[in-house]
Structure formats: C-alpha cells, structure tokens
C-alpha cells in the first residue's frame, strides 16, 4: 500500500492544471501561471487532460455553472482549487496537490455537487445507465450516435440536460453548448419519447435538428433548411447552405466560455459545417453583473500576456513560455533588465517570424483595417516598449461578423488577437495603452 501511495505521489508530482480566471482575476492568473512555471506544472488544454481545476477569483453565477460542467468532465483523480488572493497561491496549489494524491478523498461526493456520474463512471456504469433508462430500441446509444456531448469544454449552460428523458430543448436557452446531452442517457434519443424539443446531433458536423413533435425549441426553421422527409416519425437532418454550395448538415456549437487562450466567460455560439462557423454570435456570461474592469496598470505586461495567450492558440509553446516569463519579470521587477531583454527578444522573434506570418496572416481582414497578424505585431511593439497607435474599439458584434464564415482555427486566432475583456460588452473600449 505504501508503495502504491508512493508511486501515486510520484506520478502526480506535477499535476496538469486547468486555469479558470473569473473576470477581474487577471493579475491573479499571472501570479498563478508564474508559480506553475516555477514548479514545472503543465497547463491542461481540455478537461479530460486535467488533474487540478484552479478557479481564480469569484465567478458569477453563469460562469460558476459552466465551471461545474467543466468539473464534471474532469476524470479522476481530480481536485478543485479555488484561489481568491495573490497571497495564498502557492499554499492553495500545494493543498490541491496533496489532496489529489490522497486516493480516498478524491471521490466525487466531496464537493456535495451533483456529479454527472455517467460522464465519469467507467464503462460498466455507463452501460448500467443505458439499460436503466429502459428505452426499448435504444440502440443508438451504443452506436455512438446521439448527442454531441462535451462540445465545448465547460460549455456554459448545459441546457437541455435532463436526467429524466423527456423533452429538452436546444440551445436557445442561455448557456453554451451541450445540447443534446443528457446524462441519464434519456432525452436526446427523442424519437422514443416523442416528447419535447430534441436536438440530436450527428457527427459529420451535421446538426440533426430533430424537430420535436410536442412543441419546444423550433430552432432551425428559420435557417431555410430542407426537410429530407420523415423517417420513423422523425424528420431528417436539417441542412444549411455553405460556402462550397453544398447544402450539408449543420451542427450547433458553442465555443467557450473556458478554452485555452480564450477570454474566460466569452461564449461563441454558431453553426458549424465541417469546421466552418456560420451564424456566429458572441456573448459574455454574467453580462449583467460584470465587475468594473480592472485597469491594467502595466501595459507592457498586459501586452506580453496577450501575446502569450495568442501564442498558446497559435501553438507555439516555446515562444509563449518566453512571453510569460518576460511578463512575470516585468511585473515583479526583480530583474528588470533581464526581463526587458527577454521581452524584446520574444517580441522580435514573434513579429519577425515568417512562419507565423504565413500561417496566421490574412485572418479577419474584412473588418476594420488590419488582420490578426497586424494586431499581434502591435502587441509585440507594445511588449518591447515602443509606443503604438491606438486601435479603434471593436464590439462583440463586429467580432462576430469577422468570425462569420471562418474555420474554427481561424476564429480562435482571430479572437485571441483581439483584446476582449468583459467590460467591452457594455461600453466596448479597447484599453488605451500608450
């Protein structure tokens, strides 16, 4: 037993951490990231990859709900850590890891939170669930058909998650994604129940918008889709026009509110065809009760942070790491010259990279002036301490217009290249860094 405990301790010595920074917790995130870098703890990119879920600051109700969903997707062993202030970062992380290593305590009940067992249980459990629902002819479950679960990590509202089985309506109710998903395994195989709105999904990026027979979310009717006729009492897939002139199936997705390098709390709702986003719509969670924007005191640090997050999305880990280190050095002020040198080096490296220009150039040019790359280069200038011109602010609607018709990857780069913070949902100022 002792040996097992030791192996466990050794194996989990560097847990992977998923950071969720509530609005206003930016500087807190910086210090946590610096601490993680010191410890060599890697950052997770998806809940399945996570050991420690670290929530920074105080999320609003909608974001808290999203974090709960996220938490439900984290496999055991797992631990959730909440960090409120800069002071106790190291302590909280240590406690989190210590709890993670202890096997007995990593049960799902510890938080008193209803944990969707079917997501986390092992295969046997899931099978039991399937059978437990007792729907005859419920084959589809096992054939991997139905609901697109986990479409977005921490996908906001998780609506339509009925454990019962009957009608659950699609997306138009609040939160992000996870439509067609029910933990009990019931509802989304709607054909058996004939109940409420049912949005079954199909894989091909095709949104089987199963129209409900009972009422409920008549989504998709207004997309001018065609009905393929009815089969087994259920209408067939809805399709939508796409840029290639093929009317293929569409899938409704919600990106956000928690993704790597993504402004936490931002939710992008769109229809996905293949990997092309259409009908994009951007919203902030907790839009009504957002705290006053934290004025970034240190524009150079802020630029480096944004640069690091963009580089995360662009998949350039070494440059992102250097940008973070430079940011921390600038913020802490312990070794300013060194930090400045690093900041200049990384800024030069990024702004002069021809591969980055080749791969990320030309995204989002349609809107106001420059493309994503120009904005990133502007940050590089800011990061190396040069004065830059102010950019006009960009509202969420403008961003959504840019995202329209982009692939998921381009959309991610585009959003990462913008300075979106929750306050811009109301007044839309881009911070003036001079």
């Amino acid at each position: 037993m002792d040996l097992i405990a030791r192996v466990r301790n050794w194996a989990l010595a560097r847990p992977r951490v998923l950071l969720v920074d509530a609005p206003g917790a930016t500087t807190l995130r910086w210090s946590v990231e610096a601490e993680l870098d010191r410890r060599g703890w890697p950052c997770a990119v998806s809940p399945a990859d996570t050991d420690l879920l670290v929530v920074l600051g105080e999320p609003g109700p909608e974001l808290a709900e999203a974090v709960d969903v996220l938490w439900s997707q984290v496999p055991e062993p797992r631990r959730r850590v909440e960090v409120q202030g800069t002071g106790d970062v190291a302590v909280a992380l240590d406690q989190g890891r210590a709890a993670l290593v202890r096997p007995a305590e990593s049960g799902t009940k510890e938080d008193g939170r209803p944990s969707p067992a079917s997501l986390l249980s092992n295969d046997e459990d899931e099978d039991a669930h399937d059978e437990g629902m007792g729907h005859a002819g419920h084959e589809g479950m096992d054939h991997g058909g139905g609901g697109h679960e986990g479409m977005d990590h921490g996908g906001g509202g998780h609506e339509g998650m009925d454990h019962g089985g009957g009608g659950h309506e699609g997306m138009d109710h609040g939160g992000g994604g996870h439509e067609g998903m029910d933990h009990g395994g019931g509802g989304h195989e709607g054909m058996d129940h004939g109940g409420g709105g049912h949005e079954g999904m199909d894989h091909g990026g095709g949104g089987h918008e199963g129209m409900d027979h009972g009422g409920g979310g008549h989504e998709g009717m207004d997309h001018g889709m065609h009905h393929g006729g009815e089969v087994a009492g259920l209408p067939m897939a809805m399709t939508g026009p796409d840029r290639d002139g093929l009317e293929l199936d569409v899938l409704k997705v919600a990106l956000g509110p928690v993704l790597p390098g993504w402004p936490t709390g931002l939710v992008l709702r769109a229809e996905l065809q293949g990997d092309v986003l259409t009908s994009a719509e951007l919203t902030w969670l907790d839009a009504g009760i957002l705290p006053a924007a934290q004025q970034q005191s240190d524009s150079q640090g802020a630029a480096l942070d944004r640069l690091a997050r963009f580089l995360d999305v662009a998949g350039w880990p070494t440059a992102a790491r250097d940008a973070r280190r430079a940011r921390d050095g600038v913020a802490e002020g312990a070794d300013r010259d060194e930090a400045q040198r690093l900041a200049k080096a990384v800024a030069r490296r990024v702004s002069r990279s021809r591969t980055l220009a080749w791969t990320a150039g030309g995204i989002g040019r349609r809107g106001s002036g420059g493309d994503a790359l120009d904005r990133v280069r502007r940050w590089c200038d800011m990061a190396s301490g040069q004065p830059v011109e102010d950019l006009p602010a960009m509202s969420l609607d403008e961003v959504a217009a840019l995202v329209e018709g982009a692939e998921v990857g381009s959309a991610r780069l585009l959003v990462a290249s913008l300075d979106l913070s929750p306050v811009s949902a109301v007044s839309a100022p881009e911070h003036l860094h001079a």
Partner: protein
Amino acid sequence: MTAELVLQIVLTVAAGLIGVGLFGALSQQTIVMVMMGLELVLNGVLLAGGAAWYFLAPELPDAQVLVVVALVVMAVEMAMGFAVTVAFYRARQLDMIDMASDLRG
C-alpha cells in the same frame, strides 16, 4: 489437406463476399452504400485472383495483374462515385438513388 480443397475454401469465401456485395449493391438506397456493395464484390474478385495465382498459375503473373486491375477499378469506382454524388447533391440535394428515378430513360 490438398491444395484443391484450400483453393475451394478460399474461393467460397470470395463467393460469399461477392454474394453479400451483390445484395448490398442492389438493396441499398444510398449511393454511398451502393458503392460499398460494389467494393465488396471487387473485394471478392481480389481474393479469387490471389487464390488463382497461388494455386493455379504461380509461374505466370496474369492473376497478379488481374488483382492490380481490380484494385484500380475500385479506386476509379470510388472516385467517380463520390464525384457523381457530390454533383448530384449539389444539383438536387439528394443522395438516394430512388429520388433520381426521373433519370430513368
């Protein structure tokens, strides 16, 4: 076991593949599924060609060449099938054979 018996077993398998493939090609409504049926038939041809080479005439390359031809036919069938399906779908939003009965001449 004699060579003839093994040959007959392998050929029976090939015949099974051809039979299943024929059923699929004739019964399925979706174009792509019809193509899968045809692929199965050709799969049987592959197998029969290989068995013929091994058991009947290994000194001649003809059976091997036949298998190569069958493979190429498969590739062509797939490519053209998908091209036709895409064109068809683009024009009419359908992918089922029965919906195109007006093409009957």
